[in-house]
């Protein structure tokens, strides 16, 4: 062991975080932050804030959550909605039963609780491989949906299991206008995205990818597979759970257990397929896509109706379109929009050389 130590004594210089370029350049990011935190809330109208931007942010967050466990750690989960609902119901109970706690703490605890539940349903991953795991996550999906409908305690003894958002205030700041709700969601989302971005570059992130790429080899170099997988499930559900709480209280306002059904899980899955597996920024792209395409189509409805395609059929066309896109992406661009954007940017960058 002598020679390496001597080399260490004279440490060489290198960039602390060498990565493939992040999705957005620094200055661009700065501009976006300015727009997101100042311009949008000031100039955005109700419709944009309530119906597009808030769900877009929340879904990006849910996508991020799923991406951690599926994109990075390679464990397919169809239970995202379930973990979202756990987060929502946990946060709700904290809000109404322990009014003393500040909202931020409620969210955090809500996230932790759903992290525990996530780890619980992740346990089978210690024995079960690959997509057999969807059984465990589907079990989570249906069981959670059932128990929240069934046990009215979770919904503060509302027999029908419906949650109704109490008024939200963070540090004396009343979150009641669309702009306020948007800023609140944006704040939480940004924090979690930054942390996640750091997380996936940390040792744990590397272990996740190692397990994803070849778990036998990972084991041979001394990575604790089980712990790594469970952490993936836990942290994923943590993020997803917080997303769920935001979905329930900052977006919808009132939710029933069936609001978190399998379809929502699928939507989240599509977000990461289209946005890009194991990409952080991709979640935004995927979510934007999932949120905007339907709205674009139904906005176009009027125009298309004159051509003889009425609203009903549009929805079917949209279903077909989504399905097709899923397949096309899986075949042509497994790394999703994120990679697409990446390549295009590279092209633009060294365009003079190429052309």
């Amino acid at each position, binding site marked *: 062991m002598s020679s390496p130590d001597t080399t260490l004594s004279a440490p060489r210089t290198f960039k602390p975080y060498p990565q493939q370029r992040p999705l957005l350049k620094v200055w*661009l990011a700065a501009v*976006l932050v300015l*727009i997101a935190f100042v311009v*949008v809330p000031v100039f955005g*109208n*109700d*419709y*944009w804030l*309530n*119906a*597009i*931007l808030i*769900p877009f942010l929340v879904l990006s967050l849910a996508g991020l959550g799923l991406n951690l466990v599926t994109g990075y750690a390679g464990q397919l989960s169809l239970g995202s909605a379930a973990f979202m609902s756990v987060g929502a119901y946990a946060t709700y109970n904290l809000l*109404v039963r322990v009014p003393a706690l500040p909202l931020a703490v409620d969210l955090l605890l809500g996230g932790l609780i759903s992290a525990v539940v996530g780890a619980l349903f992740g346990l089978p991953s210690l024995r079960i491989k690959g997509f057999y795991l969807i059984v465990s996550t589907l079990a989570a999906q249906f069981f959670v949906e*059932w128990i929240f*409908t*069934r046990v009215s305690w979770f919904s*503060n003894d509302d*027999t*029908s*299991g*419906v949650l*109704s958002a*109490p*008024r939200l205030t963070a540090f004396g700041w009343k979150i009641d206008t669309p702009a306020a709700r948007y800023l609140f969601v944006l704040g939480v989302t940004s924090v979690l995205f930054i942390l996640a971005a750091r997380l996936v570059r940390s040792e744990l992130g590397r272990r996740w990818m190692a397990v994803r790429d070849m778990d036998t080899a990972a084991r041979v170099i001394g990575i604790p597979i089980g712990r790594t997988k469970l952490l993936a499930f836990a942290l994923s559900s943590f993020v997803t759970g917080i997303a769920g709480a935001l979905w329930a209280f900052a*977006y*919808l*306002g*009132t*939710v*029933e*257990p*069936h*609001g978190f059904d399998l*379809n929502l899980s699928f939507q989240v899955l599509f977000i990461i397929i289209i946005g890009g597996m194991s990409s952080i920024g991709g979640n*935004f*792209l995927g979510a*934007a*896509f999932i949120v*905007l*395409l339907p*709205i*674009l189509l*139904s*906005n*176009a*409805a*009027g125009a298309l109706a004159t051509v003889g395609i*009425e*609203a*009903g*059929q*549009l*929805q*079917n066309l949209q279903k077909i379109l989504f399905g097709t896109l899923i397949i096309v992406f899986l075949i042509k661009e497994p790394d999703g*929009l994120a990679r*697409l*954007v990446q390549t*295009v*940017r590279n092209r633009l960058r060294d365009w003079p050389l190429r052309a």
Partner: protein
Amino acid sequence: MNFIDSFKRRGTVSRVAAAASLTLALTAAFLSTAQAAGEEYFPLQSYRVGPYAAGGSGFFGGFIDYMNLINKRDGGVNGVKLTWSECETEYVVEKGVECYERLKSGLNGAPAAATNPLSVGIAYATLDRSTADKIPLITINHGRTDSTDGAVFPYVFPLQLNPYSEVSAIVNYIGQQSGGLNQLKGKKIVVLYHGSPYGRETIPVLDALAKKYGFELTQIEVPHPGNEQGSQWLTIHRINPDWVILRGWGVMNPVALKSAQKVGFPANHIIGNIWSNSEEDARPAGDAAKGFISITTHPSGTDFPVIQAINQYVIKPGNGNLKDPARFGTVYYNLGVVNGILNVEALRVAQAKFGNKPLTGEQVRWGFEHLNLDDARLRQLGAYGLVQPLKLSCADHEGGGAVRFQQWDGQQWKVISGWVQADRALLRPIIEKSANAYAREKGITPRDCSKDI
């Protein structure tokens, strides 16, 4: 929005998104409200695809046809034309919310009168918003029971029949059939309900009724969507009850009837509730549905003058909204017409106070709250027997609370009873208790209904 910008310049897919942002910008632009043309706007969160399309297309078909009738025949309501636009929700809550937000601020300056989502989930999700935006939320025959208490829910109207009244009326009918409510003692009744907030809503009130009248009650949940009910019906078969109350939804209904047949339970002792009472609920069950009884707030059929008028002024000229003309006069269609009548009448009442011009949701709300349809008025409307007498007030956002019973003869529904009233006096305290609990949780101070607002 920022990310859209960030990938506007890029790949094919992103071009779509770029276009999206553009279109949206535009729509958002002209949604800026300014009192203009003499039109009243009805935003329609309709659903014509997905698992529940049958209900949506029928209901909104009837609603739209009636508004068309008012425009074509009467040139609008006191000269104010009705206008509307549809937004497909697919019965999905998020889409419903998006539609609400998109349409709430009116169309080309015409103010939004009221929203009629015909979906419990969407109603729940837009309940707070409606109150905040001052737009009445109409949940005809469904919705949140305690929103009957207008003191706490000024902007929500579970018109005609809320879930509590529904089951109460059914129990009263069973009482009649058994020769008086006192005869209910010892009777066995099973309630088969959909495993959702809608289905579970009536659990406590049914327990209360069972206690009051002393009948043996078993409530059995069918997990959503309800396309597998073998075990539930075996249990029913074992209990062998006198009556089964079916509080179903969508596919659950035909399956229930077929499963009943499997275990040999007679269809004419199954009573369907307000969401188990349409042709689409009975017909798919084929023979198994013959004799099936259900409640309705409005008979199906086409021989009411108002339906005839629609036929004459709208359908015949080829402006009918139904894709399948055979559904003209069916339960969901007529419900749409009834809903149209109530909305229009509310508008009329409001105009009497605020003047014959396009009114804001807030003003229309006043109209709903002072709605008063007696038989005389219903005759004028050509809706006598189709719509029940209805009188709303600040404290009572439901009104009627009566149902008629109909029986499926294998082809269509035949009305087999007059109006059966719910025991609303009995229900009121339960409703107020629940409403006040809600008010506390939300920090709402109920209006004082003694002085008219």
